[in-house]
């Protein structure tokens, strides 16, 4: 297929940096937008964590940032719920879906499979700009007169449907839904592009079983997205109709503020089904790319092949399939038929099996390695640690019986922050440290700042979320503005203070990252073309970004991407003097292809 790789048309500032159709630039746009949204999302969490630790206390911070929502500097209960809601929305969708998947799928899919660009550069550009518009609308919604959406990130009706129920369910909620609808469109365009690119544009020799696990993860993630995001879109549209056109999809028999509303025959439980049909796969949309990045970073830095390559692919596919049939475990006590609860318990606990396989394979990958503990590697190890700690409590929450008493308590908050929040963030950081030189023309981030960033974050995030399990087991519900109305929670205030202090420290550590990131873009030391001595194809591309990725022919692939420390029978490396054999190196004489 002749690709016009050598077109020499002059690029203007606008086509190069703004309406770019080049996947590398789009990846950077996703990353930087995602990081800015992440900054906002984390800042919001600090505000409500301060309210939880020191309930009802006035603070000039609140006064300065919340304005009319903090009369006399005391945070208002409505804005507390809004902060919780927007924090969740931003972190789940804008940071960990678009920021993570959007960045690394765009950057790595063409480079690692050996393609000149995405299948459709134009769709890719549209996908980013829809994402940008949806971010902008979400931020604008913060300034709605009556306040931003405040019904929790799941926006269950009727709370989200009725402006009478809370002020945030007015214009703020409409903007939230519009923003999400556009976000979904963006995500779908992106996902379709990833799928088509992986299926069609692999270079010669790059069979599916030679793909790096990053690509497998992005590919399967995109499929989950295409299957489940449209269902959320329908939920959002139906909710918009209930709100604006008086339909009754999710509403029935409502008496509020002294009057009976006309809604009849709808059910909030239907909304819950539609929401979680995306909402649960979403967890894996967030997590799988992070695990894919970990596989690659860990194997490269361990100087060993990833253990159980085929088992890893099987577990990615297993997780993806199961993830679409477990959504009901969010609804055990929603009023749905208890028999359905049994079925969802069964499927939910099944998903622990491929997850366990992955965790064990990561651990075995470290065994007898020659671990190069770069910041990216530390974040990968950290990911496995939080993935295990957070994942294990899933067997409590996934069990319908046990869910009864911990449902919607802080136990849940602790669980999902560790297993998908922190883990996916670690994946994002691992990816940024590892592929920074690929994104910024060979410039590298400072490793020492990276170490400071990792260690403070690692300690502080356990400090926030480990004690939180106990708050949940004491029965404290989530989304409480303060816990002062129940004397039985009095003694837990100390725990809240501890968690908040750790949260502040963790957030401060992210400033180190921000500094390192920005500084390194401009002044980072230039490294070599293949700084981590990696096998994958992206490191064969030149440091300078060119449209089409490789100046000459696209490299051909002759082996899988995990030939690290491979030796002949006599113990000598395949290529003398180096412990890795990049994918484009042909099989050597007498070499056995060990493609597991």
């Amino acid at each position, binding site marked *: 297929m002749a690709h016009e790789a050598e077109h020499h048309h002059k690029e203007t500032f606008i086509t190069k940096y703004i309406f770019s159709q080049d996947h590398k630039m789009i990846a950077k746009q996703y990353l930087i937008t995602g990081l800015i949204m992440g900054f906002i999302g984390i800042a919001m969490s600090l505000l409500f964590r301060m309210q939880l630790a020191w309930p009802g206390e006035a603070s000039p911070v609140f006064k300065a940032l919340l304005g009319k929502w903090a009369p006399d500097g005391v945070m208002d209960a409505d804005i507390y719920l809004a902060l919780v809601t927007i924090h969740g929305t931003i972190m789940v969708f804008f940071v960990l879906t678009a920021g993570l998947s959007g960045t690394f799928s765009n950057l790595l899919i063409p480079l690692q499979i050996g393609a000149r660009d995405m299948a459709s550069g134009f769709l890719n550009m549209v996908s980013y700009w829809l994402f940008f518009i949806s971010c902008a609308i979400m931020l604008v919604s913060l300034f709605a007169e009556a306040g931003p959406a405040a019904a929790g990130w799941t926006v269950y009706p009727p709370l989200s449907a009725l402006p009478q129920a809370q002020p945030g369910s007015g214009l703020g909620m409409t903007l939230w839904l519009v923003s999400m609808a556009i976000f979904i469109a963006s995500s779908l365009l992106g996902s379709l592009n990833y799928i088509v690119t992986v299926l069609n544009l692999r270079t010669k020799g790059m069979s599916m079983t030679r793909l790096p696990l990053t690509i497998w993860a992005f590919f399967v993630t995109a499929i989950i997205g295409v299957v489940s995001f449209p269902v959320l879109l329908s939920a959002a549209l139906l909710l918009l109709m209930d709100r604006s056109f008086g339909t009754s999809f999710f509403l029935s028999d409502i008496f509020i503020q002294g009057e009976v509303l006309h809604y009849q025959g709808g059910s909030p439980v239907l909304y819950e089904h539609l929401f979680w049909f995306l909402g649960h796969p979403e967890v894996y949309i967030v997590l799988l790319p992070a695990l894919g990045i970990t596989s690659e970073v860990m194997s490269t830095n361990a100087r060993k092949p990833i253990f159980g390559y085929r088992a890893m692919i099987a577990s990615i596919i297993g997780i993806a399939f199961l993830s679409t049939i477990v959504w009901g475990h969010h609804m055990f006590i929603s009023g749905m038929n208890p028999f359905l609860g049994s079925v969802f318990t069964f499927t939910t606990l099944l998903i622990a099996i491929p997850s366990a396989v992955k965790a064990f394979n990561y651990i075995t990958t470290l065994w007898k390695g020659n671990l190069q503990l770069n910041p990216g590697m530390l974040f990968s190890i950290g990911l496995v640690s939080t993935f295990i700690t957070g994942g294990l409590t899933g067997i409590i929450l996934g*069990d319908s019986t046990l869910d009864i008493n911990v449902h919607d308590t802080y136990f849940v908050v602790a669980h999902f922050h560790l297993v998908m929040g922190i883990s996916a963030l670690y994946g994002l950081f691992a990816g940024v440290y590892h592929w920074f030189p690929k994104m910024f023309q060979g410039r*590298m981030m400072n490793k020492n700042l990276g170490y400071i960033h990792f260690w403070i974050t690692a300690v502080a995030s356990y400090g926030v979320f480990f004690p939180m399990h106990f708050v949940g087991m004491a029965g404290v519900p989530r989304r409480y503005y303060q816990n002062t109305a129940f004397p039985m929670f009095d003694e837990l205030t100390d725990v809240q203070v501890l968690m908040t202090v750790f949260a502040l420290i963790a957030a401060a*550590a992210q400033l180190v990252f921000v500094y390192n990131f920005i500084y390194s873009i401009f002044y980072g030391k230039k490294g070599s073309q293949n700084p981590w001595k990696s096998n994958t194809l992206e490191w064969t591309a030149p440091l300078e970004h060119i449209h089409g990725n490789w100046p000459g022919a696209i490299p051909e692939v002759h082996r899988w991407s995990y030939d690290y420390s491979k030796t002949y029978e006599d113990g000598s490396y395949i290529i003398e003097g180096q412990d890795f054999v990049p994918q484009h190196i042909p099989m050597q004489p007498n070499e056995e292809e060990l493609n597991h």
Partner: protein
Amino acid sequence: MTTPLILAVLILVAIAVWQLAKIFELSQLSTGKKSDATIADDDDNKYNGYLLFAFLVFIYGITIFSFSKYGKMVLPMPASEHGVDYDRLMWISFAIIFVVQTITQFLLHYFGYKYRGAKGKKALFYADNDKLELIWTIIPVITLAALILYGLYSWTNIMDINDEGDPLVVELYAQQFNWTARYGGEDNVLGDASTRLIDIDKANILGIDESDPNAVDDIIVKELHLPVGRKVNFYMRSQDVLHSAYMPHFRAQMNCVPGMVTQFSFTPTVTTEEMRLQPEIIDKVKRTNKIRAERSAAGEENSDPWQFDYVLLCNKICGKSHYNMQMKIIVESEEDFQKWLDSQKTFGETVVAVP
């Protein structure tokens, strides 16, 4: 008071981090090493390897710390029949989690420390082992199968809501931001109700059908009384948004959904008085009242001494005062319960006749 403290902490942390970064950069310069602070060298591997091991100690440490310091704050012994079963399954699950967590975190961090890289070291090319994969597929399968079976058995029992054994019938009615309970009265049958029949002027706040003969003796209250040892069948309704009736001491929870009636059932086994005499509750009350006494001394609000009571909380975000949507629950002997119930007015007595 706390705001300057937070600001001070934040500023100090920021300065500390900044200084640390400076020191790191300077140390790189002064040692005159070739390193350009981008790729881990042997020293980095060594120090971070040690730190990984230290981190393992930290994880164990925070686990022990949390259990010893916060373990006593978790919910006390269950006060319902199925709660005993619930807690048993919970502790079995926790035991399994604890073992797996301890072992896997050890392996992960210990390997990170043990196999830290060094120049000239050779990694082992070890790409797969079907036997190992099989082992760590089968073990979770067996463990999970056991947990699933036990869980489903309990779940089926708990959710089997039937009329065997003459259960007390109670409606829990949710609205922003309070709870109301309704008893079936003498006939133990709830009268029909619908939000469309709500008539505030006639004090018919639950929308009870006045023409239904079963409704006349219904009793509407703002405090939930339950007789000990008798099964209670709860029927939940909501008039506006989703709420969730959460009774943590009884290991009971069910959402209240506008437009439908949801159900839950349990048998209370410990009266409020008995619970107050439990050593763990006595300790908890003591700890709590110490905090409240300190508050009182500081002249703060919300500082009256506390006496233990069961409580019903709202556990589904429902708006501004979600955090304070509660109802007291009192579990008492059958006689006390009947006495209390007899002293309450019936719906027939309270509903205002049309003039």
